[in-house]
Each structure stands twice: as structure tokens, then as C-alpha cells.
């Protein structure tokens, strides 16, 4: 089970792609199809070169870099507070969650800890951005399979979540709200009650998706048994998040390690599914949105009072050292490895983003599937282009 098919085949594909012919050469042995970079199903600019025999995929090779922004290099010339502005743009659907692991890693190096109130608000915002992110997946999966209606419901209800995030942070998509040592600001008045209402809407949305998508026989026919990823393979490729939990691996950083957020003090459940197919990935994510609602609700009930900012110097210099912090982001495990030399700027930042690993399994999992399944598998792996290309 190596990552790629045989190297000659791959170089053949690369050669085929290089000349980027629009026109077909109809060869009896197969044809090369470019899915992307401009393609409705790649939501972003992922390109998958597939070698087809009829509609069966002989070999598939994703090509990315169309959106590579070089954040690891750029982070080396920005001060620590400025880096959060960059990393906001990695997974743009759940931006706040991108900031958290970076801040946690920096806090670990500085040996400061956010006050409890900040931790709880962080947890609430973290899970709200998970909802905002995954809700869109729940609708989008329908579109990829040809059902147009769910995505409109998703956009409708996500808007309420974004409103709540905006009410706190001032930014719908790029909050840039997390600070080393706490948060920029406290919650606005009346926010807690409003958020409860929004959570109710999201729960209704989840029920709608359960009826409209999960319960649909065609959806099940299209996703059950498709793109099966066994647990071992998933682990060796570094799949994370719902993708690996759908393969039956009961592993969630929020529960299994001390991320530095308030999850450990809350009562919630990690969902897994034994099948490892596209359906399982969808189902697990659906349950996770519900679970996130539970988490946020408990956060709202239990936010302690106190300051939202610890004592940190105005100008942040991070002591020399290395630290790695990872959190269970909407797309999977996201981590930052920070090398500091006691300076205003980090010496090196390695960004471990979830989608990069999640998509790296595609050559393995796409082999032998049909073109329609390519779409459903890619959609169910759920990647954000910014999270692959960084």
C-alpha cells in the first residue's frame, strides 16, 4: 500500500498533464481527464489528474499549489501577534479555530496561561467556527452528489452562526481575535442568549439534513461502501478529524489530550463509525455538529467570570525554545511547530494543516473508483484549499 501507483504511470500522467491539451486523443487504452483546477467540484483550485479506462479511474494524482501563499516563510518575518492574521486564512471557513493552536503554542513557550474566562470563550468560539465550517460541508456534500437544495439550507443557517462570531470578534470570516494570553475583548451584552437561539436553529438544520440527505436512499447508494479507508491506512497517511473517526478510530484531541481549552470540563461524546466510507464520514460530521452545539451550550452555561486577558508584556518576545501545539479543528488535527530564538518574530513555523494529510490519501483511495465516486470521495474527505496549500 504505497502512496502512489507505479512511478512510470505517474510520470506518464505528468507528461500528459504538462502539455495540457484541451483536445482529446481518443486512445483505446484510456484517457486522461483533468478534474480542475477550474472545476465545480473542487471548491477552490485543486486539480486532480485522473487516468480513465472508460469511467473507471486507473490512477489519480492531485496537483496543488494553485493557492500556495507561503505562510511558513511569511510567518518568519512577522511578529507573533501578526501571524494570527496570516493563519486566519488557512481554513477560511473556520478561521477562529486556526488561531487557537498557534496562540497555544506561543503561550506554552512564554509560559503564560489564559484566564479561565478566556479559555471558555475560546472554546465556545472554537466550536462555533466548527459549526460554521462543517454545516457548509453537510450542505455541500449534497451539491456534489447532485441535490441542490441542502446547500441553501446550509448557507441560510450558517449565516446565524457567522453573525454570532461577528458579534464577538467583529469579523465574519477572519476574526483575528485570539491573543497570546487571552482574548482581545469580552463578550458583548446579550450574546449568550442570542447564541442559544442560534444553536436551536443549527439543531433543526441537523435534523433536516438527517431527513433530506442521510435518510435518502440514493444518497446512501452513492456513499455506502464508496471510498473505504481502513483505520490502519488512514493512520499511516495521517488522516485526522472526522475522516479517521469514520474509520472507527476513537481518537479526538479534544478529549484525549489537554489542548488547553475547556473541553475537558464539559460533558460530550466522541462519535465514531466503523465503516470508513463516504457515508460514515458524512454521518460522523453530522453528529459532530450536534455535539458542538452541546459543547457551546455548556460553555454558555458555565463561562466563569473574570478577566479575559492575562498579564503579558505589550511587546511580545517569545523565549527561545520549541513548542508544538495541536487542536482538533473542524477539518482535523491542526498544529503549529514554533521554533523561537527569543525574538519578536518566530524563527520557524511549521504549519501542520489537516487537509494536507487528508487529501494525500486520494491517490490510494481513488484508484479503481468511477468518476462520480471521485467527486463523492473528494467531497466526503472535506478539504479546504487554503488548508492544503497554506
Amino acid at each position: 500500500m504505497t502512496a502512489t501507483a507505479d512511478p512510470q504511470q505517474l510520470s506518464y500522467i505528468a507528461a500528459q498533464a504538462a502539455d495540457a491539451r484541451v483536445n482529446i486523443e481518443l486512445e483505446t487504452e484510456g484517457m486522461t481527464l483533468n478534474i480542475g483546477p477550474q472545476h465545480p467540484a473542487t471548491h477552490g483550485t485543486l486539480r486532480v489528474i485522473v487516468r480513465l479506462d472508460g469511467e473507471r479511474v486507473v490512477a489519480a494524482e492531485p496537483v496543488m499549489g494553485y493557492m500556495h501563499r507561503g505562510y511558513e516563510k511569511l510567518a518568519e518575518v512577522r511578529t507573533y501577534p501578526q501571524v494570527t492574521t496570516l493563519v486566519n486564512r488557512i481554513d477560511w471557513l473556520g478561521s477562529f479555530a486556526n488561531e487557537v493552536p498557534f496562540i497555544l503554542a506561543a503561550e506554552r513557550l512564554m509560559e503564560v496561561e489564559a484566564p479561565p474566562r478566556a479559555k471558555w470563550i475560546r472554546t465556545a468560539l472554537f466550536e462555533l467556527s466548527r459549526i460554521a465550517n462543517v454545516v457548509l460541508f453537510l450542505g455541500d456534500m449534497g451539491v456534489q452528489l447532485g441535490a441542490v437544495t441542502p446547500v441553501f439550507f446550509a448557507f441560510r443557517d450558517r449565516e446565524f452562526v457567522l453573525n454570532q462570531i461577528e458579534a464577538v470578534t467583529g469579523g465574519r470570516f477572519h476574526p483575528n481575535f485570539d491573543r497570546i494570553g487571552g482574548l482581545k475583548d469580552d463578550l458583548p451584552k446579550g450574546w449568550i442568549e442570542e447564541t442559544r437561539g442560534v444553536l436551536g436553529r443549527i439543531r433543526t438544520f441537523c435534523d433536516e439534513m438527517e431527513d433530506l440527505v442521510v435518510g435518502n436512499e440514493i444518497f446512501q447508494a452513492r456513499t455506502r461502501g464508496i471510498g473505504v479507508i481502513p483505520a490502519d491506512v488512514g493512520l499511516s497517511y495521517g488522516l485526522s478529524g472526522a475522516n479517521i473517526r469514520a474509520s472507527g478510530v476513537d481518537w479526538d484531541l479534544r478529549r484525549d489530550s489537554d489542548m488547553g481549552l475547556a473541553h475537558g470540563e464539559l460533558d460530550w461524546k466522541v462519535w465514531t463509525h466503523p465503516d470508513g466510507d463516504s457515508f460514515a464520514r458524512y454521518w460522523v460530521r453530522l453528529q459532530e455538529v450536534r455535539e458542538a452545539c452541546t459543547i457551546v451550550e455548556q460553555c454558555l452555561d458555565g463561562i466563569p467570570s473574570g478577566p479575559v486577558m492575562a498579564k503579558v508584556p505589550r511587546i511580545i518576545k517569545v523565549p527561545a525554545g520549541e513548542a508544538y501545539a495541536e487542536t482538533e479543528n473542524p477539518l482535523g488535527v491542526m498544529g503549529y511547530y514554533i521554533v523561537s530564538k527569543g525574538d519578536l518574530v518566530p524563527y520557524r513555523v511549521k504549519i501542520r494543516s489537516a487537509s494536507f494529510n487528508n487529501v494525500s490519501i486520494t491517490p490510494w483511495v481513488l484508484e479503481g473508483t468511477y468518476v462520480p465516486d471521485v467527486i463523492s470521495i473528494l467531497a466526503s474527505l472535506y478539504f479546504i484549499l487554503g488548508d492544503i496549500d497554506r
Partner: protein
Amino acid sequence: MDEAPVAVEADEARDAVVAALADALGDGLVASEVQPGVDAWVRVTADAWVAAGEALRDRCGMRYFNFLSAIDWQPSPYGRDMDAQVDGPEAREPEPREPGVTGGDTRFQLLARVHNPDTGIGVHVKADLVGDAPEVDSWIPVYPGADWHEREAWEMFGISFRGHPNQVHLYLPGAFEGNPLRKDYPLLARRIKPWPGIVDVELMPGDDSDDDADSSGGDAEGGDDE
């Protein structure tokens, strides 16, 4: 995550990992560091790189491949680009290398992290790579997920992986030259335009302007603007 309360305790699980590695690799294990309750690092020789991966996977249950990358320990000849001026001096005296956790002797250091999903413990593996265009054995036979990470390390740092089936550019265009994440690769935007952002700390109303970079005493309220 706060390491202070548990700093004195021993971390048996992470120590066990290091011990297992020492047992499996012998001289291959150069150095190790365990921050109890937080994290663990091991440094192996480049020759023991694949063996270290196998030992971690098979003996320590580190089935989960997290990431693979590298660190360029040679500071940039252009300085830290914080105070870069357009007409500033181009290259400077090279600063000395200061290796981080578990030390290091060479410019390039390979860095990978694997994880045990059952115990929730991860370990960073480092390896010193000799030379300016170093080579090391590929981890793909051990962790197939290393494929793309090695391609990334190859184009970003110029580290070749022996046995990699498809060592081509991952992000960069095919004809791209240079290894952008090497420290001596200039960030062009900083070379042609000064960066105003480095002094963007806004003062609170009524604050004095002498709150300079050395005020680590923590008297300010830290960006908490109303």
C-alpha cells in the same frame, strides 16, 4: 498545557518511548528530551532515520503519521528582516547557528512527528543532515503519508529523499529554482519595500511611548482595548 505544575514529575509513558528507541537504535539515538506531561523529542542519526520510524511504529504504537518537515538552523544572511531597509546592506556577517531542543550539529535538521492514537502521546523525531544538498532515506515504506511531506521538504529545503517514487514539485511551478524555506532565500517583498508592520504596537491613551521591547515585566494590560 501549563507545564509548570508537572515539571518536576517524571513522564513514564514518554520516557518509555525514548527508552524503547534507545534500545532499538543503539548508537542511532543521539539525544532526547522529554518535557514531562507536554512533549518529547528525540534526535537520531540520519542513517537511523528509517529504523527510527520503524521502531516508533512497531514498538511504540506510533501508527499515526503527523507531519514531516525540516529546519534550517543557519540564520539568514539578510538578518531577521525586521528592520530591513530598501537600500540596506545586502548580505551580512552570518550569525552563528543556535540549535534548539536536543541540539544539532548541522545546518539542516529533519523534523517529523508521529503519534500514538491509543495513548495520546506523540514524539518529535529529528535528524541532522550533512551538507548543503543533503540526502536521506525516504519514510514512505514506513509511513505512506510521508510522500507529500517529503516532496514539500524537497522543494522547500532541497533535501533529497532516497527511494521517493515521485520527487517532483508539490506547490511550486515545475521550473521553479531555489528552495524558498531556506533561510538564505530572500523574501523579495522585504528586499524591495520596508516593512512598517514591525512597530505597529498601538499605544493606549495616556500611555507613555517608552514601553519598549524589553518591558517583560508585564505591567501593561496587553492589548486589551475597550
